[in-house]
């Protein structure tokens, strides 16, 4: 009929049933392919080796976090020091979820009261916390005692991470409100105590004498259970790679 849409002649003649069968098989194949691609993300996360990511303040247990996070990045937008980044596709299910790379930029609480938690629309960062002391991102540990300057009784002079480091930190004694580049803030210390000096949480870390230290001046950093895992010590540690780093708390992030 001249009124219906012109149908181009089929190059090969298939019966209607054959065509339908092909369409069904194609649909099945494409559907299975798309499902497999999504499952590859799941597999990637399940088989992941190595330490889990540090999640932003208030993050609930990792599995629940990945379920609850809607991957919108609103926490990224409010952070005054841009400590939060979004993971890429390579992380499977974690793709689009926020994390903190503390060595590059720690969470220094420049915002005063966990802005990222307030920004989160889903409770993946739980609204049960509202003070920095309640945060449990991870916990600092002296991962490489041999590299610690304090343990060697050494001082430190100059910018903590060299002049090229892009990290920022709030120095309350200079400007209460605006974080400053670490590179623009040189130190001159008889005994390196940067991890203790810059720690934003009172009583979380201190230098203590310890057995086995060769030098009279030497002290070792001791972390208490007040540590929130913000990562400022890891960012500021002048040893390369850092002597102190944050171990993620995989479970039990909920404050009691």
């Amino acid at each position, binding site marked *: *009929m*001249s*009124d*219906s*849409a*012109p149908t181009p002649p089929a190059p090969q003649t298939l019966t209607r049933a054959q065509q339908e069968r092909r*369409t*069904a098989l*194609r*649909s099945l194949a*494409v*559907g299975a392919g*798309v*499902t497999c*691609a*999504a*499952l590859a*993300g*799941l597999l990637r*996360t399940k088989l992941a080796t190595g330490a889990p990511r540090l999640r932003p303040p208030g993050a609930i247990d990792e*599995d*629940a976090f*990945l*379920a*609850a*996070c*809607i*991957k*919108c*990045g*609103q926490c*990224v*937008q409010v952070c005054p020091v841009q400590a939060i*980044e*979004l*993971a*890429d*596709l*390579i992380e*499977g*299910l974690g*793709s*689009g979820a926020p994390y903190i790379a503390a060595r590059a930029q720690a969470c220094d609480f420049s915002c005063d009261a966990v802005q990222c938690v307030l920004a989160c*629309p*889903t*409770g993946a960062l739980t609204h049960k916390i509202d003070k920095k002391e309640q945060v449990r991102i991870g916990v600092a540990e002296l991962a490489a005692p041999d590299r610690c300057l304090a343990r060697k009784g050494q001082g430190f002079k100059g910018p903590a991470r060299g002049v090229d480091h892009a990290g920022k930190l709030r120095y309350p004694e200079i400007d209460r409100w605006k974080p400053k580049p670490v590179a623009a803030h040189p130190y001159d210390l008889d005994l390196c105590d940067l991890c203790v000096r810059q720690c934003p949480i009172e009583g979380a870390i201190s230098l203590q004498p310890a057995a086995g230290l060769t030098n009279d001046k030497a002290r070792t950093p001791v972390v208490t259970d007040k540590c929130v895992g913000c990562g400022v010590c890891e960012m500021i540690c002048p040893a390369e790679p850092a002597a102190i780093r944050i171990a993620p708390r995989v479970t039990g992030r909920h404050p009691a």
Partner: protein
Amino acid sequence: MNRALSRLAEGYAQMFGKAPKKPERADFTERAWDLLAYKKTPAQRAYRKAAIKAEREEEVVNHTWRNRRWVSILVVNLLFVASYWLDLQLIEGALTASRVFGFHFADLNSALQVMLAFKTVLINLVIGTGTVVVIYMLFGGRSFCAWVCPYHLLSELGEMLHLRLAAKRLVKDHPLHRATRAVLFAVFAALAFVTGYTVFETISPVGILSRAMTYGVVGGLVWVALLLLIEVFYSRRFWCRYVCPIGLLYGVTGAASPVRIKYDGNFCLHEGKCREVCLVPHVLDITKFGYSKDVEAPIGPDCTRCAMCLDACPTGALSFDIKGLSRPQTDRRKADGAATCADATQGERRT
């Protein structure tokens, strides 16, 4: 009223994969049947043939609505980017969830995935989805696809390439069954619930593109590029047509939206240009000769309101309509020589 309900039910069924079928005599309204009879007269046949011929000789390329839509997609997505980089704070977040002037917005499918995986009803998400549901109930569910979704824009460019290659017989479209999308929707919902993860979010090109633009997380673009390659070389617009659960959910949400495209059989030459450009041609099945039970009918809920059919239609048989607000198309304009229902019922015959 019953007619409207059965039309809605049919629209839903087609969205979930049912093939449209030619109506029986009993399904037609009297006016529609009369119009059809009138259109079958030799004079009308000759008129249509001449009109189509004249119009093909003087091909008018019209992209009015497409251009408006592209502006809309670009503006919305650039607002996301500018809100972050220029600190404008108008639309913060990504297309999965955001704050628009401080109000929570959440993508329906993203929110559903989160709630199924997390197994908690989150109040902010309920507020966010509620706002979005109201917006798309008013403005037409799948207008999200055509007027907001950044993948839609890329997909349109891929489609242009596909059609160009297809015209040279270098590629061939491999259509899939439209029920694939409904099945995949159920699969992804079930996966979220069973695994406890937002499994679909990982491969959602909407989220990937939105985050890539705003936050510079670009690795996922490899996946988006793969999807586009499939669309160019294998199956025309396969993601939006046969896969995307986001589109299905918006379609379901805005099925009874007052903003829709309306078909007016009085002006239709049944040439099929609209179906050639349409992302979801099954909704335009009523524009085939003898397929519309009514003289005037709204296009089904799978319609994205992209209005490419409006650009393509040479006679204005398709137009935007707001239920209860628009005047009837027939009153608004009267095309020369177009068959109208009045002609048919009054028994007028043109020569």
